[in-house]
């Protein structure tokens, strides 16, 4: 091949190296997204070759059924609990980035849930939080906090918080580790200069650490928003065929039920499209709200 001109080689390399990856990206990411849009205007049942156009019917069904607002309120719980997660990650990242004996062990422990799969975690918590044999309520009772014991996974008022905190349990350490990574890239002499100028620990955190973490915090906010909108792992594993009275259904678990169980692919696709639109809008809004204004 060395006999070919450089230009010719470049063309061959670009084509042959990019064609398969781009086909994969097109077929498994963009094509599904676009066909989601087309299906959303039909009443396709997932099997038959007939797709009748129904215009905006599916979208109207979503907006006129109050059920979906309730489902959406479950996702909101994940979103707000996610802020607790970001706060905790930031706190532990700062602590474990300072010189502290045993910090490597604590880092390793706090990160460890991330590597365990969600199915195992979901079953672990159903066991821990079980009303009859669950250890959590027993322990709360024995340390005199019986008033805190609850029907963690069967009370509709509580279950979504429980599920959201399960994902905090899983992802807090992950977020902490990426924040530590960003903290380590802040040069130490900035802190030294600040302390010579008389800045205290809090001021150093407020005026050096936080601004340097802007990009990584932006990523954390993005991950939180995305994760909250598409939350599904734990409610899905615990109630694979839908939760009683829909008490823990999220937007995505409901979409999956609508399509693969009730074969209403048109409606499910409309929900998918809405989720995409909502995600894009909220990501942009959040970006502007937290970071955009001082960028301009």
């Amino acid at each position, binding site marked *: 091949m060395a006999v070919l001109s450089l230009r010719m080689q470049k063309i061959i390399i670009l084509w042959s190296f990019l064609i398969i*990856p781009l086909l994969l990206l097109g077929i498994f990411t963009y094509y599904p997204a676009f066909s989601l849009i087309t299906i959303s205007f039909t009443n396709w049942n997932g099997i038959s070759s007939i797709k009748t156009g129904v215009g905006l019917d599916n979208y109207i069904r979503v907006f006129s059924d109050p059920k979906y607002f309730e489902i959406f309120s479950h996702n909101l719980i994940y979103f707000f609990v996610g802020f607790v997660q970001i706060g905790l990650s930031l706190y532990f990242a700062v602590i474990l980035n300072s010189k502290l004996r045993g910090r490597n062990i604590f880092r390793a422990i706090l990160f460890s849930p991330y590597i365990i799969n969600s199915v195992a975690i979901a079953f672990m918590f159903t066991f821990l939080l079980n009303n009859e044999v669950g250890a959590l309520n*027993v322990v709360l009772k024995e340390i005199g906090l019986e008033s805190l014991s609850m029907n963690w996974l069967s009370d509709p008022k509580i279950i979504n918080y429980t599920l959201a905190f399960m994902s905090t349990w899983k992802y807090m350490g992950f977020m902490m580790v990426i924040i530590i990574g960003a903290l380590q890239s802040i040069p130490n002499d900035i802190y030294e200069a600040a302390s010579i100028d008389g800045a205290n620990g809090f001021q150093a955190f407020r005026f050096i650490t936080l601004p340097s973490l802007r990009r990584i915090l932006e990523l954390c906010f993005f991950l939180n928003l995305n994760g909250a909108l598409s939350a599904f792992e734990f409610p899905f594993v615990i109630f694979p065929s839908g939760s009683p009275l829909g008490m823990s259904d999220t937007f995505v678990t409901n979409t999956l039920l609508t399509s693969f169980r009730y074969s209403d692919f048109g409606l499910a696709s409309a929900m998918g499209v809405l989720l995409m639109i909502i995600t894009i809008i909220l990501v942009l809004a959040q970006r502007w709200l937290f970071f955009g204004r001082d960028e301009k």
Partner: protein
Amino acid sequence: MIRTLKYISLLIAAICILFPPYIVIVAAFKTPTEFALSAGYALPGSFFNFDNFANVLQKGKFLRSYFNISYIIILSLAGNILLGTMVAYALGRFQFKLKSLILGAYAGALVIPGITTQVATFGIIKNLGLFNTHYSMVLLSLGADVVQIYIYLQFIKNIPYELDESAYLEGASLFRIYRSIIFPLLTPATATILILRTISIYNDLYSPYLYMPSQSLGVVTTELMRFSNSYGSSWTMQSAAIILVAIPMVIFYLVLQKYIFSGVVNGAVK
């Protein structure tokens, strides 16, 4: 004083993290009667009572699920690394018109909610005749994602371009440069990606659930779901099953912890 407060908060966090697995571990070593009579947090009579594990391995097809998931991981990683380095070489070393469009296409994929589009992906997998085969999952995890592309691009930037040039002057073709210079020098980035992908494929629940429902194709996640459908009422066996499914990743983590941390950081900071 502040130091003490730091340790107290760390200890509370560590207890919150370790308490749930602790409960599962002690339950897995108890006999059913022992379990019924003792408190959930009490230690088992013996940590050498492996009956529950033996029962689980006999009733659930966990050994087969390890095999299935390993096969899928090996095939997808091989393809994934090959394609990923090729994209990195093409995008990292050459200037051409469509480059920023292609980069944008990878970045744009981030806002497409992968799980809801399964409604449409399902049809594609069926039409390709891959439904209920290992290859459905292999194909779905073959493509590089934006994180991987960025890790590679970041890394390839630091490989001096003079290496390419001098190799070219000595008569190497561009393909040869990719194969003998770029690919080997990308190894640290490749290691990062191998680790991150192994974790995510091993723990993937939805693709196997949807595309490989056949029992003989069970992977660890789907097998655990199936097992708990039939034996979930026996908490001692259920606990043993949870441990069996989690243990390979725990070992993986203990051995590669340092690399996992730097992998996660590299994946995020770019």
